[in-house]
């Protein structure tokens, strides 16, 4: 068996495709656009999910909130004792946090207290983190530093509910690569937070419950609900699932925005799949009359599908990669991030799932090849005598 014949047929196919340069270039353009969009969505969603899940892999296993009249309420710290008596619970700690609406910048900040220390080597924080007991100092996220023009040792002024202005000295600023997590954070000590929000003593925002065995978390959550009926436990697993769903939902939204392009391509593919042009039919007849076998014709059509769809796939997927990881998803960012007063500046870590790319390849290239071969089947098997007559 020799390859020459197949190389020749491929050569002829390309020659034949070049006869309709503009039409085929148009198909490739639309096709690669479709692949670029779909590929971008896949790459972006996957990278986001991976990053989110990696980062959230260490969030508290179980969080307990209190409900009053169906609303989220601050929780008495004393409830922690009751919870810690449940078998399997390794410890309960109160968590203090809240939102601060900054009327100057019309943005919402998230105010939290530290639950421990950062290791010395953590490069994502310039300066240091305040400890839980410290007063009058704060570490802030990059978004706040930018909008308020703050640097280390500057003063961050915040209003407390009684209308008084309170000053915090900035001792730490989170660095750009961590903005996906820290963008809008203000970290202050526990006492400061209680004063800033006028929290009564003995009350926390919610409780973090440590669990000895991860697999028991759902059981413990159920027990907590039984013993404290007005509580609401939130599992880490639920958080991660929620994020998965949020990103899938958002990527669906983007695909809807580009539904026009997808529809245009569907019409194009339909047009191709439903029939050969008179010119193509005539070409096939001539080739057959000149001694090409049916299998040669089908091979030519196969190459035609390969040439167009593979070219489009490569162009599209390379463009998608550049779009997402070199240009930070410039086209999609608005739809993905939602509107906001200030946007986090983060650079995506290029997590890629080769399996997803392979799936995209097989879901675009193979149907296109099929839609090229199948309609030409009938023309390829009919006798060429029609062409004799012209």
């Amino acid at each position: 068996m020799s390859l020459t014949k197949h190389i020749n047929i491929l050569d002829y196919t390309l020659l034949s495709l070049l006869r309709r340069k503009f039409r085929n270039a148009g198909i490739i353009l639309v096709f690669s656009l479709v692949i670029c969009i779909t590929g971008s969505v896949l790459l972006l969603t996957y990278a986001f999910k991976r990053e989110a899940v990696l980062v959230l892999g260490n969030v508290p296993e179980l969080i307990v909130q209190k409900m009053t009249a169906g609303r989220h309420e601050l929780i008495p710290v004393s409830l922690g004792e009751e919870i810690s008596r449940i078998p399997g619970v390794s410890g309960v700690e109160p968590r203090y946090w809240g939102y601060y609406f900054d009327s100057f910048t019309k943005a919402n900040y998230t105010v939290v207290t530290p639950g421990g220390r950062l290791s010395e080597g953590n490069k994502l924080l310039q300066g240091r983190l305040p400890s839980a007991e410290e007063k009058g100092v704060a570490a802030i996220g990059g978004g706040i530093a930018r909008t308020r023009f703050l640097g280390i040792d500057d003063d961050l002024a915040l209003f407390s509910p009684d209308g008084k202005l309170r000053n915090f000295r900035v001792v730490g600023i989170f660095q750009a690569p961590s903005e996906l997590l820290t963008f809008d954070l203000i970290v202050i000590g526990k006492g400061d937070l209680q004063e800033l929000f006028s929290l009564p003593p003995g009350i926390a925002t919610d409780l973090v419950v440590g669990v000895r065995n991860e697999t028991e978390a759902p059981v413990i959550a159920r027990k907590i609900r039984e013993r404290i009926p007005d509580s609401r436990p939130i599992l880490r697993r639920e958080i991660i699932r929620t994020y998965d769903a949020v990103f899938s939902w958002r990527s669906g939204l983007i695909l809807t925005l580009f539904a026009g392009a997808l529809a245009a391509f569907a019409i194009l593919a339909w047009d191709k799949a439903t029939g050969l042009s008179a010119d193509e039919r005539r070409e096939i007849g001539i080739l057959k009359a000149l001694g090409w076998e049916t299998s040669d014709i089908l091979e030519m059509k196969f190459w035609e599908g390969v040439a167009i769809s593979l070219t489009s796939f490569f162009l599209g997927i390379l463009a998608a990669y550049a779009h997402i990881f070199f240009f930070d998803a410039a086209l999609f960012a608005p739809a993905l991030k939602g509107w906001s007063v200030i946007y986090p500046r983060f650079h995506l870590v290029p997590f890629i799932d080769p399996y997803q790319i392979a799936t995209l390849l097989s879901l675009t290239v193979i149907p296109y090849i099929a839609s090229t071969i199948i309609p030409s089947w009938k023309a390829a098997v009919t006798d060429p005598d029609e062409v004799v007559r012209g």
Partner: protein
Amino acid sequence: MPADTIISTSGVTKYFNRGRPNEVLAVNGVTFAIRKGDFSVLKGPSGSGKTTLLSLIGCMTRPTAGSVVVAGRDASHLPERFLAEIRRKTFGFIFQQFHLIPGMSVLQNVMIPLYPTDSTLPDLKRRAAALLDSLDMSKRAAFPVQGLSGGEQQRTAIARALINDPDIILADEPTAHLDTALSKDFMEIMKGFRDKGKTIVIASHDPLVFEDPAVGLIVGMRDGSLTELKRRG
């Protein structure tokens, strides 16, 4: 049947649209034989079945009844794959409408029949160029075929029919689109091939073709039936 018979038909019959109201009996029980090296002409009025008989001989279509034997093989029952092989190896077909593929150059058009074979492209190109040279067409080799004159188109079609070095050349109404001078040129080219030992079958109602003294066998047709079988010279 003489030993040097290259094409023979026996009782070959072709219906179109069999069993439907628009049924046509295009060729009706034709039996004749063509010897190797014959210069033969199928003649007859329009609609008499010349083109149909030619495409039956050329293995472009299968007879409804009867048989066509080409170079010792009964083509009427061969699977399609073998018919294509016979077309590729044995015949060179010059169509009435030429059927060049627009958008390709003269040289590329001439190469088409040999693409699905194991000859390499540079080799093919050399053969095509040599053929075009022998037909005085080398200055047009790189031209796109749409821009050619009728005579040039026909020479391209001739070159394409000859690229596979066929034993038999079939031509349908080759002079229909040509003026007298070009028609005579065409006959001269065909005589040249006959002299090289090729068998030539032309379907034509042009007296300039069938009255040519070089023609050795005249097959007359009317309404699909054989009316005349005359050997000359």
